[in-house]
């Protein structure tokens, strides 16, 4: 058990290194470096516009290049970048000069609250609808939930958000259209974010539950006279949840990225909105820091799911321990 966790942790290291390298390379592919872009302002950096640093700007320009280590060789830059990462120093914004750690510190609660609200809703609706669908197999409620599953993954989250705002904010005036805090302000964004994930989970839960319900041990449980409720919720659900756990872990990554869109819909001051602003302002250190943070959170979540998996399903532990 412990050995498996250690191996799984070690496996995460090359992936994290890969993520770091990819982010580094991606943002070095931009024509012109961040400081040039800063001096170019909002102009197109495609190389057609040449810019001239006036003599009066030259010393400030050089200083800025030194500050962002752009005067050094690219390999040197890469090691500085790795070392900064080890110290959890994501650098600072080229526009506002604010440390990125500070930006993250200010805005992460809004994003995490939203992600958790979406995840909670997705798990509740997804598992609930999936189980009911499987028990009431081939009834109207099953068809309704199947339709919801197809529809839920097809409707763009931002459109769903706009519809909800139209009905509940503009029309009925019950809930705010702009969201920043939690509680009531989290209802509409949470529903908007969680719908697609709950549709995916509902579908998976249904097929997993149908599969489990046809197993021998369920027949045994029924034959020994166990109440149907106990059969479903104690014997079947626990086993049916196993594949759902993995997908829920993957869904977390989707939800985390989904907040970028939802925060735009509800002008919620989270990290997603910061990312979009940074991209449009070409503030690359911020883009780099936020993308890396999201990838690391996602890698961490996958690690947690994998470890959790060995607790839920001991068979996995045996198989994996042998490899």
């Amino acid at each position, binding site marked *: 058990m412990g050995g498996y966790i250690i191996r799984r942790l070690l496996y995460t290291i090359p992936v994290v290194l*890969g*993520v770091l390298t990819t982010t580094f390379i991606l*943002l070095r592919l931009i024509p012109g470096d961040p400081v040039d872009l800063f001096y170019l302002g909002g102009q197109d950096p*495609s190389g057609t516009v040449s810019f001239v640093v006036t003599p009066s700007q030259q010393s400030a320009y050089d200083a800025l290049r030194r500050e962002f280590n752009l005067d050094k060789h690219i390999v040197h830059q890469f090691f500085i970048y790795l070392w900064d990462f080890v110290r959890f120093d994501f650098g600072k914004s080229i526009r506002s000069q604010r440390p990125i750690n500070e930006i993250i510190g200010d805005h992460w609660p809004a994003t995490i609250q939203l992600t958790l609200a979406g995840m909670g809703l997705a798990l509740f609706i997804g598992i609930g609808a999936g189980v009911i669908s499987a028990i009431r197999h081939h009834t109207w409620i099953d068809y309704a939930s199947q339709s919801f599953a*197809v529809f839920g993954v097809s409707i763009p989250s931002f459109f769903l958000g*706009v519809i909800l705002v139209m009905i509940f904010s503009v029309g009925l005036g019950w809930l705010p259209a702009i969201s920043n805090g939690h509680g009531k302000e989290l209802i509409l964004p949470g529903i908007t974010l969680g719908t697609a994930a709950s549709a995916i989970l509902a579908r998976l839960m249904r097929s997993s539950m149908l599969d489990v319900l046809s197993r021998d041990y369920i027949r045994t449980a029924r034959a020994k006279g166990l109440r149907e409720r106990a059969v479903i919720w104690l014997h079947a659900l626990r086993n049916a949840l196993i594949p759902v756990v993995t997908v829920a872990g993957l869904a977390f*990554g989707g939800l985390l990225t989904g907040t970028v869109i939802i925060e735009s819909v509800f002008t919620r001051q989270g990290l997603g909105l910061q990312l979009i602003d940074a991209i449009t302002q070409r503030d690359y250190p911020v883009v780099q820091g936020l993308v890396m943070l*999201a990838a690391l959170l996602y890698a961490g979540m996958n690690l947690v799911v994998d470890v959790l998996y060995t607790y839920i399903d001991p068979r996995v532990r045996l198989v994996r321990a042998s490899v």
Partner: protein
Amino acid sequence: MSTDALREPTSATAQDPLELRPPRSEWQMSYRRFYRHKAAVVGLSILIIISIGAIFADVIAIEPEATFYSFDELQTKKWLPPLTDGHLLGTDDIGRDVFSRVVRGSRVSLRVGFFAVGIASIAGTLFGLAAGYFGGWIDQMVSRAIDVMLAFPDLLLAIAILAALGPSLVNAMVALGLAGIPGYARVVRGATLAARELVYVQAARAVGMSDTRIMLRHILPNVLSPILIMMTLGLGGAILAASALGFLGLAADPPTPEWGSELNLSRAYLRTAWWVSTSNGAAIAITVLSVNMVGDGLREALDPQASSWAR
């Protein structure tokens, strides 16, 4: 006598319970399964209508592409509700016919979707085939690259690539295409590993057929079903993701009638003219829904055992 006549049951044998029917191939069976799936047929029909709309957009869109009004004219032209003055879906804030814009938008979205899926599936299939077939260091390299790319949540990778390339519609296609590669590569690699050991592949190798020929002629047809299923479901995903990028202002520039960016811009006057946002949003939802329905049907038709719906 032609072979068709041989296969055709004659009227004399029609009563025979052991009557010989024309032989059916794997693909014909799949075709039948697809056409029994009602949702898939409905989806396909809607998709065909949308495609026709996209192809003949210039004929169907009643209004010329760039229509501008003077300030005074605009007062009577803007924000007309649906079904007034021959505007099926009303007009927007600068008096343009929403229906015409939405029809033109189908062109943009379908193009982005097909292009992105094209890049992802072709490159992903080639990488996956090479990794699965050759094994060794090629497999190691491709597999590690897949691991790293899949370590990014899906849309985030596209956003990161787009940030590097700079926001534009073409770059959005490329970014979505690149971000889609690892998914195909992983599936094709797995299927190739299994197909490599098939007897006739071994036989092809024994008679000295070249690696490229074995991969393309003997292995590829075997791994085609999962690729086709992924491509259809991926098309819906790509259209959805592209419109999300448009909504975030990272894809199309304003005059382009891209559904996502139109929806974003029209949110500003949602209280006055709800139909502009709704029309564009509904266009995305209907397109993606029909693509997904076709994808579900295709999955059931090509891979009946693995289908979660068929129970």
